[in-house]
């Protein structure tokens, strides 16, 4: 970390610090050299994270982190490239780059801090905001269905896809570690609480209330599959967690 950049800009109670911590923990466990690791981000709260890491980092334009990262990784496959992004950055303005990076299956690790809201601009609806949730641009509740980012990454061709939350610190760290190890594009979605802009408008009075919600509504993918096989209902507000896919499609930009 860059101690000379503290204090950071994340609000108190924000989940992004936890996700960043898990990411750095996983990178540490890989034993990657700092000078061979590059962090890339776009715009938004999540994308400020690389600025606090003592390594080469590129804080780019809104939505384009994956395209910049593609250039870095393809020009120099020896570098380890980790992309830190958010739901607005990745799935709205950057949606096209997201599916194409997955399709190319470039050897990048993408950690998406999904707080289901535009935090930095003060709480507007995002592509992952749950239907009926309140935001400053959906004052009567969002009418739009949300994206399932993991399904999107799987359909587009990523080699590794996993979803956890800021509550599931150990699981999330393990998932990121698995993503770093696997060649090709690894997508790790980390639901992250935003007490300032999501929580306070959506009945999570304190930061921990939303974390608690992640804990009580999380349901493992294995259980979801079992319930499906048994013909049982899956609760509509369930957050499906776990490793969604791990495969070995041909990948690009893999270090030799």
């Amino acid at each position, binding site marked *: 970390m860059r101690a000379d950049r503290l204090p950071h800009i994340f609000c108190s109670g924000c989940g992004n610090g936890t996700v960043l911590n898990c990411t750095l923990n996983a990178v540490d466990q890989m034993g990657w050299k700092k000078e*061979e690791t590059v962090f890339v981000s776009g715009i938004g709260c999540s994308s400020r994270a690389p*600025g606090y890491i003592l390594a080469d980092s*590129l804080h*780019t*334009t809104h939505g384009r982190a994956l*395209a910049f990262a593609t250039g*870095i*990784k393809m020009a*120099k496959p020896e570098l380890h490239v980790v992309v830190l992004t958010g739901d607005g950055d990745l799935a709205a303005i950057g949606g096209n780059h997201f599916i194409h990076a997955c399709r190319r299956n470039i050897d990048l690790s993408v950690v998406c801090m999904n707080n289901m809201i535009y935090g930095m601009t003060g709480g507007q609806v995002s592509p992952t905001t749950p239907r009926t949730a309140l935001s400053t641009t959906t004052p009567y509740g969002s009418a739009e269905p949300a994206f399932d980012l993991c399904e999107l990454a799987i359909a587009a061709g990523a080699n590794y896809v996993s979803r956890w939350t800021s509550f599931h610190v150990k699981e999330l760290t393990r998932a990121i570690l698995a993503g770093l190890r696997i060649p090709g594009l690894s997508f790790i979605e980390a639901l992250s609480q935003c007490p300032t802009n999501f929580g306070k408008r959506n009945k999570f009075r304190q930061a921990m209330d939303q974390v608690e919600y992640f804990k009580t509504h999380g349901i493992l993918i294995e259980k979801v599959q079992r319930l499906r096989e048994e013909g049982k209902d899956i609760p509509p507000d369930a957050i499906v967690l776990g490793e969604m896919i791990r495969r070995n499609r041909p990948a690009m930009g893999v270090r030799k």
Partner: protein
Amino acid sequence: MQGNVACAEGALAAGCSFFGGYPITPSTEIAEHMALKLPKAGGVFLQMEDEIGSIAAVIGASWTGARAMTATSGPGFSLMMENIGFAAMTETPCVIVNVQRGGPSTGQPTMSGQADMLQCRFGSHGDYSIIALSPESVQEMYELSVMAFNLADRFRVPVFLMADEIIGHLRERIEIPDSVQRVERRPLNQGDLPFHPGEDLVPGFPRFGSGFKVHVTGLTHDERGYPCTTNPKVHEELVKRLVEKVESKRHEIADYRVTNPDAERVFVTYGSPSRSVEQVIHDNPGEEIGHLRFRVVWPFPEDALREFKDAKAFFVPEQNLGQIAREIERHTSVPVIRLPRFGGSLHTPEELTSALGAFK
């Protein structure tokens, strides 16, 4: 050889090792030739999902130290604008070729234009400076392509090769030198702050993967590279330096050709209309007709106008409504006669001759 192919060959000779692009007429042959040649030269060719991704990938590749380029035309150029500002702000060397066609919007995809000349200078938001070159021949597509990489590395700015469809698609004789001169970006000295301006206002380059652990951001940043977005002084110093590092070197960067400096009637051109003027001068050997031809258009080399001490009028044939004529007007007191040509074709020598006659 075709102009677009010569441009790609120039890039390869200059050591370009990364191309990110998206097909668009009339620039596509550059991407096709790079796709053919780059992998064999140990480089990387990527066809990205759009022009926004293309320029982004080019900037990313440049931070690994690669000489990187993209090529496009009007609509793709417009899409690139935000990231061009990012390249200017982060002082990322890169080469952007625009084989101009008729605009606005989709316009005339297969016809020539020169109406992006102000866009390349001012198209992204905020104050910054860039360098733009304009070739008049297939030979210059090659030469200026090499020059673009050298200037990009020397000044750490996006450099534009502002060609036009006529030159891009022209096939003509070209002489390819055995080797080309290369001016590489200066590496950052150990111990220097990554965005500390050197004596020439251009910081040394801390290539990713070389241990500098540099943070690069499009936000206003201090010399450490750290975001510093609310301090007016930091912002002022940074923006002024981004502009000054180019504008203060305009004499060094200037590159133009002067014909008949004693003439009273002087054509000023860049790109393909230069060829029509050369034909006029050739066909009228008895008449004193001046010609100032810019190979570098931005930063605007206004001193070149003073080479024509007796000038009574500047005639400016352009494939636009007078974008560079407007710039010339700012720097001279003699009449500037705009000779716009639309529809994608080249000014004929006859119409230029009669424009001269009308002034007499």
